[in-house]
């Protein structure tokens, strides 16, 4: 049996990375900055509040402005390399995907890419069978997009089954997007996951039911992460609706990845916040989250975080969420 030098290097790097991660955060804060010239992956997650046009008015100027900002950033060379959008239900949000210079677009499942009927769908067995639908009725698609400067080598999705949602959220085909990007930063690809989990208050369903649905969605994410991952580094970002403590605890314990915001705030020697970004906006007062995990050969290090897209247009915010952008230094042992 021969052992490749790369394998040994990767193993050593993994051991080092694991050692670093196992250290108390206080120790990490005092650690010296490493590889300052290493490449940086810029990743934006943004719930753009693009509800179906029948439910809203006056949205296109906001979508256009979001697209314009991304174009301005591209012109300045500071565009996020990867943009994850949520709530892009309105067809007019496609201006963001189509005009901002991203070469690769992965649109999440649409309304017809229906999720499957679960075992306890609320219409089951209640009345006449023909009034029931073999697949859940969806009024809108997933509202998810992944925009990428980098080739997408593999794209998968899993739409939540009908017993994995609650309340009005069931009307959209909520899903999880999985993408594998080949970046120029490392030989190993980087896995990206985008999703929008069940809301709480706006679902208009009893608290226990929405909490149960949220837990099921977390279980689905964990299950299909296991099916998708092949040992590459990963960033999971989106609107996970984890502002509630119980939801965050179950979600973070289940996926068992690093919360980029927490890591950033715990490593101020490495990581800074954008001007105007408050700590609680990336920790507790938000449903927008980014989680990540290194691989044996590639380490991701959050070095900057921002709640951006704070601009007002004619007195209106661009969305009811802020953008959540994290920059990851990509350190390789390759």
């Amino acid at each position, binding site marked *: 049996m021969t052992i490749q030098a790369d394998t040994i290097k990767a193993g050593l790097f993994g051991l080092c990375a694991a050692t670093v991660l196992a250290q108390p955060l206080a120790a990490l804060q005092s650690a010296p900055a490493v590889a300052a010239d290493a490449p940086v992956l810029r990743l934006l997650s943004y719930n753009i509040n693009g509800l179906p046009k029948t439910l809203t008015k006056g949205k296109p100027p906001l979508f256009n402005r979001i697209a314009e900002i991304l174009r301005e950033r591209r012109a300045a*060379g500071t565009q996020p390399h990867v943009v994850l959008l949520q709530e892009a239900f309105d067809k007019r949000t496609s201006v963001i995907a189509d005009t901002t210079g991203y*070469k690769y677009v992965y649109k999440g499942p649409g309304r017809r890419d229906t999720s499957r009927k679960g075992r306890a769908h609320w*219409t089951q067995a209640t009345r*006449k069978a023909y009034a029931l639908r073999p697949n859940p009725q969806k009024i809108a698609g997933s509202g998810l997009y992944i925009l990428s400067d980098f080739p997408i080598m593999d794209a998968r999705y899993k739409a939540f089954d009908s017993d994995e949602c609650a309340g009005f959220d069931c009307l959209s085909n909520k899903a999880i997007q999985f993408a594998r990007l080949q970046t120029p930063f490392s030989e190993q690809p980087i896995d990206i996951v985008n999703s929008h989990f069940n809301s709480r208050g706006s679902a208009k369903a009893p608290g226990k039911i929405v909490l*149960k649905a949220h837990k099921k969605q977390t279980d689905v994410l964990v299950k299909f992460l296991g099916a998708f991952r092949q040992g590459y580094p990963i960033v999971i970002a989106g609107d996970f609706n984890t502002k509630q403590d119980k939801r965050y605890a179950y979600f973070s314990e289940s996926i068992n990845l690093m919360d980029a915001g927490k890591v950033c705030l715990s490593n101020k020697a490495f990581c800074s916040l954008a001007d105007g970004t408050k700590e609680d906006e990336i920790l507790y007062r938000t449903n927008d989250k980014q989680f990540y995990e290194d691989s044996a050969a590639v380490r991701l290090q959050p070095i900057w975080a921002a709640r951006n897209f704070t601009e007002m247009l004619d007195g209106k915010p661009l969305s009811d969420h802020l953008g959540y952008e994290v920059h990851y230094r990509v350190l390789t042992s390759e």
Partner: protein
Amino acid sequence: MSIIAAGSATGVSANDVDASFGGKPIYIQADEFEDDRKKDSWAGQIGFGLSVAPRFVGADEHVASVGFDLKVSYKGTIFLENNRIGALLYKNRFVRAGAIARWNLGRIDNGSLSLLETIPEIDDAFEVGIFAATSLYKLFLTTEIYFGASDDFSGTSVEVEAGYTFEPTSKWRVTPILGAVWSSSAFLDTFYGVEEGNPDFEAFRPNGGLSEAYFELATERRFGENWLFKGSFRFSELLGGAADSPIVRSAGGSRDQLQTFVGIVWLF
């Protein structure tokens, strides 16, 4: 909006990324993960319990008996629901429609008709028809139209009902339903008409029209993965030609009709 500058303290560095692309993006096709969750072709439920119903349509007397509840569907297309069988033939985003048949039990002399000896039995018979349904979220609206398909049993009836399913808890559903039945004069005459020369009742030929309005409360309480407690309580008021029938207005008849079922249901 904060736009970060390249090379600033934010950690942005000049990466080897081609940012010059300005054309139409390449849309990536994605595959759905195969899921190993079981999806049966057959689905349904069998229940038994206690049912209460009028001795015949329009009767004042109600009787309790062992009740059964059977619903079976195959691939969501062919279904059997107690005395009805049907097939889904058309479906789109909002509407589902198809053919349906109903086994109408008629009116049988089981001894109870001794009070109404001059009212004839009505043989059981098939009615055939069509149905259409629409639903939005937990709101549903269904229509069934039946046509008598035998010599003894003619006429047309149309049933329309709407309901909404509430979920007070994750294991408990409550569905209030409002419905109405329109019947042709021929249909009403079968059950409510009286021939000339009847010694007990004056002759009566009902006109077609709205013949029944009802309120139903259906509830389910799940107590196991495949088990439910089920209850339905339906209160009907006979209207128009049905309500005016001498049979219904007699001492043995009533405009108020109650149908209930309480039982245990096994889902499969």
